[in-house]
């Protein structure tokens, strides 16, 4: 006899994203913190595994941006093998990477950010979400789905699955692109580029209508970090690190990403499991830096493709020194990148050599360490592996994209909270705005703390003695 047990209601207890606000005696904001709980043991779990498995294991950190981990792990594996990729393998890796950039940025803009922008931060939450988008402006929602679908389809072509593909392996790729697949991409890409341009125009329209908001919402200075190519363009797959300080002065340039530890250190705070990377030279917390779309566009001089480059030059004019600091500008930067990635896809598949068969380089070497660095949609991602002579993992250190932004996200939350809490009173709309601020950074808290789960936002407001004054939940 079948056992039918219905429980209602059941509560899924998740607690991975939480904000704590601590007031001072006057009832104003003293400190604000974004907490992330942690999943333990990832490094331990990797010990004894073969480095060949890492491109398959590490994507399981996250179901949102697994391809970034997949690629960074393969790159670290390339370094352990001491090989150089064949031109075809590199093209295919880049194609995979650009496809995931398009789909990730499309998901974020169309489904997460655009409701805030289209309906206003204070619009009824019941409408200010993707459902509202689908009801009010279904054509925009559909564009998002189409862009995402296009990116996913390329990922599936290269790796058999749309999420957690098996495509990149240490040494190269495990399959070539077929001519009919190339054809399919070429048929869809112009429409995709048009849709990316549409999104940028939409956002520019928003900036024009809300000029003060753009420069007053969570607007603060920070340093910026990103990979650039030898022409100073934004580079997502390879490249060298450049860091600009809070006034736009280039402090580090041409740094081999494998040497990241020479400029970056991670601080541990006892109230969050997510570590706080900072630029060593400027100390902690002054060495706060931002990565991701805003970070990349701010450190670069140009974009590798014509339409995106034109947009970047307009973007840079928003600020006197070409460094644009307001948190909301993350959205604009994200869209310019999406366009850049779409144009790059076109350029990669236009060359029929993308279907060549030389996709892997072998080696009998096993180096003691390998570092794979890549610009994931959310920022610079570092995979650092140490292996023994048999290729078994001894240790892994991952600095995940969102982790780089930890200090900045906390600062954004602090700035917003300060504006909305006075004399112990929380103004209507604070919860919304804290969420909007966090959304700018498109955080992947799963990755950053190696945790999994949903994240309803909970904000707890404390008296100076830490007694709970108020709890707000989204």
């Amino acid at each position, binding site marked *: 006899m*079948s*056992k*039918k*047990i*219905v*429980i*209602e*209601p*059941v*509560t*899924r*207890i998740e607690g991975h*994203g939480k904000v704590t606000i601590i007031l001072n005696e006057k009832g104003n904001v003293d400190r604000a913190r974004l907490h992330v*709980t*942690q*999943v333990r*043991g*990832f490094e*331990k*779990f990797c010990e004894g595994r073969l480095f060949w498995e890492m491109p398959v*294991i590490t994507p*399981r950190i996250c*179901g*949102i941006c697994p391809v970034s981990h997949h690629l960074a792990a393969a790159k670290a594996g390339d370094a352990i093998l001491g090989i150089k990729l064949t031109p075809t393998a590199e093209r295919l890796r880049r194609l995979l990477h650009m496809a995931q950039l398009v789909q990730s940025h499309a*998901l*974020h803009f169309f*489904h*997460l950010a655009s409701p805030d922008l289209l309906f206003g931060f204070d619009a009824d*939450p019941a409408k*200010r*979400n*993707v*459902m*509202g988008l*689908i*009801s009010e402006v*279904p054509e925009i929602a*559909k564009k998002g*789905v189409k862009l*995402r*679908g296009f990116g*996913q389809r390329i990922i599936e072509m290269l790796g058999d699955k*749309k*999420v*957690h593909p098996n495509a990149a392996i240490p040494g190269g790729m495990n399959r070539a692109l077929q001519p009919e697949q190339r054809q399919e991409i070429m048929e869809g890409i112009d429409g995709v580029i048009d849709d990316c341009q549409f999104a940028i125009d939409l956002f520019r329209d928003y900036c024009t209508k809300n000029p003060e908001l753009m420069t007053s919402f969570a607007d603060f200075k920070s340093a910026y970090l990103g990979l650039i190519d030898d022409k100073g363009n934004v580079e997502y797959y390879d490249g060298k690190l450049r860091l600009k300080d809070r006034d736009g002065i280039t402090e580090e340039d041409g740094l081999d990403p494998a040497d990241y530890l020479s400029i970056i250190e991670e601080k541990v705070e006892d109230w969050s499991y997510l570590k706080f990377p900072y630029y060593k030279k400027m100390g902690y917390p002054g060495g706060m830096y931002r990565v991701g779309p805003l970070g990349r566009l701010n450190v670069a001089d140009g974009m590798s493709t014509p339409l995106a480059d034109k947009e970047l030059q307009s973007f840079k004019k928003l600020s006197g020194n070409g460094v644009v600091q307001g948190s909301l500008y993350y959205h604009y930067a994200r869209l310019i990148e999406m366009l850049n990635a779409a144009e790059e896809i076109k350029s990669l598949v236009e060359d029929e050599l993308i279907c060549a068969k030389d996709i892997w380089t072998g080696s009998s070497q096993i180096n003691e360490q390998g570092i794979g660095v890549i610009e994931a949609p959310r920022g610079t991602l570092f995979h650092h592996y140490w292996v023994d002579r048999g290729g078994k993992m001894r240790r892994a250190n991952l600095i995940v994209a969102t982790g780089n932004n930890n200090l900045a996200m906390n600062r954004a939350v602090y700035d917003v909270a300060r504006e909305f809490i006075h004399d112990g009173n929380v103004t209507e709309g604070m919860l919304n705005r804290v*969420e909007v601020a*966090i*959304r700018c950074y498109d*955080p*992947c*808290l799963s990755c950053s703390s*190696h*945790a*999994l*789960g*949903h*994240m*309803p*936002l909970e904000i707890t407001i404390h008296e100076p003695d830490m007694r709970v004054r108020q709890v707000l939940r*989204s």
Partner: protein
Amino acid sequence: MKTLILGIGNSILGDDGIGVRAAQELAAKISDRNVTVCDVCVDGLNLLEIITGYDRMIVIDSIVTENGEVGEIYRLRPEQIYPPSGFSVSPHHFNLATTLEIGRRLFPGEIPEEVTVFAVDTEEATEVTEEMTEKVRLALPEVVRLVLEEVSAPLAKR
């Protein structure tokens, strides 16, 4: 009637992998061509493309409850677990009910109308391991049996 059996979970997060393991066992036991068995380690909108084109879907997943017993199995509708919210700070917020709602609005007629979730009660997964805890491991054959029964039950009973 095309049915999708979807095991959701992360097989390197201990008990969270129960859905994936159940799906793997079911795949070996089911030969009906109208039934597709799939295991995935994704959530949210990534599910959309996977679930289109089916009339019925059976999901197997882990669930953390306040008062339940680890190893218990619940048969639920997605809306009983969380209301469709569409509201999120991160893509991780798009729970199953929300994904279904979005799918039905964007692709009417292509998303399964009938969705049943078999949720196995677990603790919060905080340890990276491929091993499940004992109570959850013992629940595996039962959840497999329940899903097989569900798949073959005639329409009237459902």
